[in-house]
């Protein structure tokens, strides 16, 4: 109040900012627009909640404090106590009658993998009856699954641990691209590959991960994410640098594991040839960080975004385990081969956990190599990351973007900021075929359905009263 060169932030009428310009004041103009329809009263209620600033600061700090380390690889039956007939899937809870084609295809393939049926096609009555099988979101078991995200008892999972708290998260091994179970394909070659993952790759990785863990300390997955973001990966649709760094860390122990040299060679070839292999470590690393912020009353931060191919759901730090859902959208992007928009299923998968944690679409600016693949230009990518800063609580100093002067990635989606600006989180995603059994048809960009943010806001507002 004593300074003669006061800086002003003007939000509202430009005329008032013009008057300040005329007085040679330094004015920052806010490009304000009305909030999402019907949210004004709820925004006021939440803004007036005295718990919110500290709760959000706490939520963000907890997320940023987590380090994800790779401590084990083991079957889901052992890690999660998953039993035959129990199926995990991506996204919020869903029933077979509402399940989309790719989720159905993956469940059918999973049933065959577990030997519940001989032919995947025979699994349909099993799921229709629903007496001997059950469906449950991966998120409810501290796990995340890409695309359909189907996890069965015999599948091997990565185990990530936060050394501070001992909390753990889980994710399956990545099967590669094209005709794969997570995109809803279940042909014999898909099942053959899954069996190889369980019989050969899983045990081999277990041996290597345990050796590294015990001899040098566990692989720092958060640290690899830091490096790969500087190497052109956004860790959702591009994981090439991350995959190769993981191989660098694990391959000596794989070679000396005592396993058959031909199997080791095949495993190295498989991992090295699958640019998405690291995605299945990035996802549980993000979940591990975000789960640290669950259950903070008054916090408006999003802790999960997930889709089951029918519904898109979010959870927030301040609303417990409640899901706020709306219809999953179709992605906008590029298609493989002859496939077109009519072949694509609505958005599916837990992989939006990467965007929830501030990478993937939020770190688009760091991954110019993929912007065309997901239907954009380099300037669009820079603008996308900058735009996401408008709806987040802070930045991640560990995950920085060189081309944006090493600014940290936008972290901690704030429901109130989404409702105030109408800016929706940008998600990079793959596209599954609409029909069960088809597999991947493309990749592109997608956003959540707008209405789920006002829904979450309304609940947050209710909890303040």
């Amino acid at each position, binding site marked *: 109040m004593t300074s003669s060169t006061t800086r002003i932030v003007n939000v509202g009428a430009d005329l008032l900012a013009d*008057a300040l310009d005329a007085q040679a004041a330094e004015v920052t103009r*806010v490009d304000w627009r*009305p909030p999402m329809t019907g949210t004004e009263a709820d925004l006021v209620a939440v803004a*007036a909640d005295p718990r919110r600033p500290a709760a959000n600061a706490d939520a963000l700090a907890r997320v940023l404090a987590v380090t994800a380390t790779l401590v084990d690889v083991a079957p889901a039956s052992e890690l999660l106590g998953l039993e035959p007939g129990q199926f995990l899937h991506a996204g919020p809870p869903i029933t077979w009658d509402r399940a989309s084609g790719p989720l159905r295809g993956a469940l059918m393939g999973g049933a065959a993998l577990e030997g519940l049926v001989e032919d995947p096609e025979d699994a349909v009555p099993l799921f229709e009856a629903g007496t001997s099988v059950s469906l449950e979101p991966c998120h409810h078991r501290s796990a995340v699954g890409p695309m359909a995200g189907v996890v069965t008892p015999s599948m091997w999972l990565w185990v990530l641990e936060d050394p501070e708290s001992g909390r753990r998260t889980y994710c399956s091994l990545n099967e590669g691209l094209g005709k794969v179970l997570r995109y809803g394909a279940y042909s014999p070659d898909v099942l053959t590959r899954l069996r190889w993952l369980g019989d050969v790759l899983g045990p081999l990785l277990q041996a290597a991960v345990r050796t590294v863990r015990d001899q040098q300390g566990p692989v720092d997955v958060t640290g690899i994410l830091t490096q790969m973001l500087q190497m052109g990966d956004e860790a959702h649709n591009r994981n090439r640098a991350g995959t190769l760094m993981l191989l660098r860390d694990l391959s000596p122990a794989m070679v000396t594991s005592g396993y058959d040299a031909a199997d080791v060679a095949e495993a190295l070839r498989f991992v090295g040839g699958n640019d998405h292999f690291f995605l299945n470590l990035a996802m549980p690393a993000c979940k591990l960080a975000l789960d640290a912020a669950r259950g903070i009353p008054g916090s408006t931060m999003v802790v999960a975004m997930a889709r089951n191919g029918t519904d898109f759901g979010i959870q927030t730090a301040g609303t417990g385990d409640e899901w706020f859902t709306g219809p999953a959208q179709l992605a906008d992007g590029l298609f493989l081969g002859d496939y077109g928009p009519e072949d694509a299923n609505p958005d599916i998968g837990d992989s939006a956990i990467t965007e929830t944690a501030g990478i993937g679409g939020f770190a688009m600016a760091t991954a110019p190599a993929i912007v065309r693949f997901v239907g954009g230009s380099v*300037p*669009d990518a820079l603008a996308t990351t900058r735009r996401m800063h408008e709806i987040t609580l802070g930045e991640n100093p560990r995950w920085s973007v060189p081309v944006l002067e090493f600014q940290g990635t936008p972290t901690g989606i704030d429901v109130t900021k989404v409702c105030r600006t109408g800016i929706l989180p940008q998600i990079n995603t793959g596209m599954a075929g609409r029909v069960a059994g088809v597999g991947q048809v493309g990749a592109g960009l997608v956003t959540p359905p707008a209405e789920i943010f006002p829904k979450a806001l309304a609940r947050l507002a209710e909890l303040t009263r």
Partner: protein
Amino acid sequence: MSQTHVELRRGAYADSVTLLQVSRTVQGVEGVTAAQVAMATALNVEVLTGMGFAVPPEATANDMVVAVRLSDEGSLDAALAGVDRALTESTRRAPGPSEEAPPRTTAAALRRTGGDAVVLVSVPGPSAFVEAVDAVEAGCDVMVFSDNVPVEQEVRLKEAAAAQGLLVMGPDCGTAVVGGLGLGFANVVQPGPVGIVAASGTGAQQVLALLDHAGVGVTHALGVGGRDLSVEVGGLATREALRRLDADADVERILLVSKPPAPEVAAEITDFAASLGTPVSRALLGEVDLTAATEALLRELDREVPAWPVTGRAEPAPSGSRVRGLFVGGTLASEAALVLGERGDVTDFGDDAYTSGRAHPMIDPTLRLEHLARSAADPDVAVLLLDVVLGHGAEPDPAALLAPALASAGKPAVVTVVGSAADPQGLDGQVRALADAGAEVHLSNAGAARRALELLS
């Protein structure tokens, strides 16, 4: 043949000032006889209906209405092209994709400035609290220009600010001068020994203008909003503003300006003021008029009290029995009403009822001009009493539309022009234009109101 065209643009938004400018631009397109582009708030729908436009019933406050009346059908394309052009030109150049887009919330803007700024909020009332909270959370003083903010939100905001030693000016705070910088509607004044705390925007402007004429400068004029001295708010911002001015070595004397305050709050503030090192004088309407309070202040500062200027001369009213006051300044309206008593009818066009979804009358003269024409035709009305407020933020040339309207009104008119010598509109030019139209022009609002009473007899 005359034709009207009304269309709804769902989800389109521009602020009321921008739309006023767009409407004016489109009115200038050939073949257009009337044009109104506005958000479909209840008040605007009423205005549009009054203009003979049929607004679709599904219109909500979030929709933009484009309404034009044409002298011939062939002009429609040109008119709509004019609307689009004006809307496009009204927005700043869209940044290229690799440039940094402007921030979308106050929080985002403050993150960019590093939290070192005073925040000026003028978004629609229902959204003002949320933006102001961003400022307080970032540790910044904030001026809430917006009106229609519920009082419980004001209390919540000011309590949060008080806990951190921050100043919330407003809501409905039209005027502040902070370290010489005018925020909102503010007159250009020299720095000097006076500090003002004002629960009244145009009240502060009247004092600024009178002090300027007397050659006395002002260090800061801190608006606190018209409700700050109510029982509900309890003077939360007034205390903080007094504390700030007391701590400023350049302030020799503080003047507290307000519409009639709640007596118990006034008493508490008086006690608080007495505890400060800097003497605090009061200009509380109901106790004293603003001119008299300014004169007392000048005497306390050992300055000469000048004669307040009057330009032009109105003749006594030939007919009618009442003074009709048409004001853009709320405090000026209150002051006039107190002076006029039962012989006057005063309307404050800056009142919330007239500004929901519309620009303030100091920016948009439309409503007052309409009422001026009605008053001119009213046989009961003997004398017209108006205010014109100059300074940053106000209309660039208020006399341009008002002078011809007064000239054709056919009734004696007394006008207060509140302005300083350095105001961007040019005080002398405005006064002369109004006097040339037959009005008697005063610098003192209380003086003008008394003169209007004289003209009745």
